[in-house]
């Protein structure tokens, strides 16, 4: 097994493990008896592990979700489905490797599967743009989903991206349009769609595969409108405050279940999915199958309406009291006309200037 990437918050634990290892070695080499000491430390280690992983903070989950060895879309496809046939290209421009997709059988049932794909190593990551798609990636996904709709196959998507790729060529080819079109078209498909956030669900690039009848998340996955790093740099001009932003932004599976954004959470082994991919895939497979069975009972029209209502109800606001209204209107009448001539700036800059 390759050496595991250690996360900062796991350091006390790994230090303790190192200590135990040293002690064991010492005992072996010098023939001394540390059995009692080792037992005591191992007990402490176990206790520490439980404490550490039972109440993980949002920031800690974010680090687990970004773990280098965290299973990717292709890992889950291999572990849960059979007969996977990868299909390529958007028929317009290119084959974006940041998104994978194709046909597979799920317990014998033909399905279409699409997902963001991070790389396994640096070279793979460069080829796959670290899992951040260009428009051609979103358009490939759309093509495969349209195909699924035509041939009446359920669609399963895996979400795992920091966001759409921020590049000039992506903008030239219509990054906004590609994402927007996916949102609209996914809303109109008459087949079951289940979306699984397996790692990081960042921004519009994640949502472009996320308009499903059911959206479920792995226990340590995160999902947000902007990456905590991005939010920190805009709000506090300091990207290193990502951990603080992660807490404030309510990005964990538990938070999203409370907001009724997602329908279900899939348990991960202690320490994260990378500790036991097979176990995680089994948990996910079971839940997926359950949700799919429920959705397969619905007609195409019911599926579209079910999906519409799922997203229609999201949003929290209030209706102002009439007294507040009157006050606002009074002010409205006395208000001077709004002055023009503001500094033109890019949206992002302007946003940051305001916050």
């Amino acid at each position, binding site marked *: 097994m390759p050496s595991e990437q250690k996360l900062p918050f796991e350091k006390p634990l790994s230090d303790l493990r190192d200590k135990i290892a040293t002690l064991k070695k010492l005992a072996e080499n010098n023939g001394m008896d540390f059995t009692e000491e080792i037992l005591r430390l191992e007990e402490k280690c176990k206790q520490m592990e439980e404490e550490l992983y039972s109440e993980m903070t949002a920031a800690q989950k974010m680090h687990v979700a970004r773990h280098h060895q965290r299973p990717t879309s292709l890992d889950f496809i291999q572990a849960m489905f059979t007969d996977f046939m990868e299909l390529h290209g958007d028929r317009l421009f290119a084959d974006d490797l940041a998104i994978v997709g194709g046909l597979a059988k799920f317990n014998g049932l033909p399905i279409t599967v699409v997902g963001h794909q991070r790389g396994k190593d640096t070279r793979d990551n460069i080829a796959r743009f670290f899992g951040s798609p260009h428009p051609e990636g979103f358009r490939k996904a759309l093509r495969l989903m349209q195909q699924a709709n035509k041939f009446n196959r359920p669609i399963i998507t895996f979400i795992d991206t920091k966001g*759409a790729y*921020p*590049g*000039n060529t992506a*903008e*030239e*080819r*219509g*990054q*906004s*349009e590609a*994402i*927007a079109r996916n*949102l*609209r*078209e996914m*809303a109109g498909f008459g087949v079951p769609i289940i979306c699984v956030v397996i790692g990081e669900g960042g*921004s*519009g690039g994640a*949502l472009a595969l*996320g*308009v499903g009848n059911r959206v479920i998340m792995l226990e340590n996955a995160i*999902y*947000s*409108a902007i990456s905590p790093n991005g*939010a920190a740099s*805009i709000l506090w001009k300091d990207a290193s405050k990502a951990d603080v932003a992660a807490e*404030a*932004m*309510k990005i964990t599976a538990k938070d999203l279940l409370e*907001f009724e*954004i997602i329908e279900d959470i899939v348990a991960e082994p202690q320490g994260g999915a990378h500790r036991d991919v097979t176990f995680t895939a089994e948990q996910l497979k079971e839940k997926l199958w359950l949700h799919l069975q429920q959705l397969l009972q619905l007609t195409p029209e019911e599926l579209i309406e079910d999906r519409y209502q799922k997203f*229609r109800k*999201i*949003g*929290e*606001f*209030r*209706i*102002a009291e*009439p007294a507040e209204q009157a006050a*606002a209107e009074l*002010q*409205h009448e006395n208000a001077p*006309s*709004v*002055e*023009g*001539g*503001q500094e*033109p*700036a*890019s*949206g*992002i*800059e*302007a*946003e940051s200037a*305001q*916050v």
Partner: protein
Amino acid sequence: MQIKDLFSKKKYATIPSGSASAPERPKRDIPEGLMNKCSKCGNIQYSKELDKNLKVCSSCGHHYRLSAWERIGMTLDDGRLHEYDADMVSIDPLEFPGYAGKLKQQYEKNPNLNEAVVTGEGMIGGFPIVVCVMSFDFFSGSMGSVVGEKITRAIETAHAKQLPLLIFSTSGGARMQESILSLMQMAKTSAALSKFQGAGGLFISVFTDPTMGGVSASFASLGDYNLAEPGALVGFAGRIVIEQTIRQKLPDNFQTAEFNMQHGQLDMVVHRKDMKHTLTKLLDMHIVREDLSHAE
């Protein structure tokens, strides 16, 4: 004098530059707001003239940003709007640090706005229409729950009343203080458009300066016709983020309306003075066929 002296540099006395040493000019007494300096070309003009010119610089054609009500005044017949959901206001569902205070600031700054979008019903060139007009003044036009809900309701009303839909967009993107709730407004509005447009509804989208991020990547890009004002910044990712990613400087015209048109992302770039006429013409192209068949 020798010949080489001809080419030698003349010596001048140098005066240190910098504002510190610049002589203070007495400040002239100009009433606040009487004059306006164009942020693009520096041209100074009377504010009244500028208003008469629809807030377009008479010298360089720069389109100033408009508040929602200014645009409604310019676009709708008699400037009249029957407003929907005027009483819908934001709450702080995530209890996000600083959000409540920031909302309060926005209300104080914009006494005539309750949120970053005004929606309602009016007429353009005699055609009844449902309109949504965003305002960059309010919270950078960012889309939170209220913006998403008001736009979705407007789409549903246009659908129910079988009216065309017009949205003037301007936004910095998602309102991150509402995090996932704001992201989901992209899906909500797009799903509503799926129904509306699927049933034959007409949607005209106009990008105004600037339209970025989550608004650009949802309803604003989904018009049956996508228009933009000249020079409007339209894109998904911000210039700075892209420059940091690709480690290159981007051209000045990057993500402008003209740039987007050149790359096939827009149907038309329309000058503000022609906007109402163009919209009227577009609406006129969609007169229901039955009306004409009766005319035989």
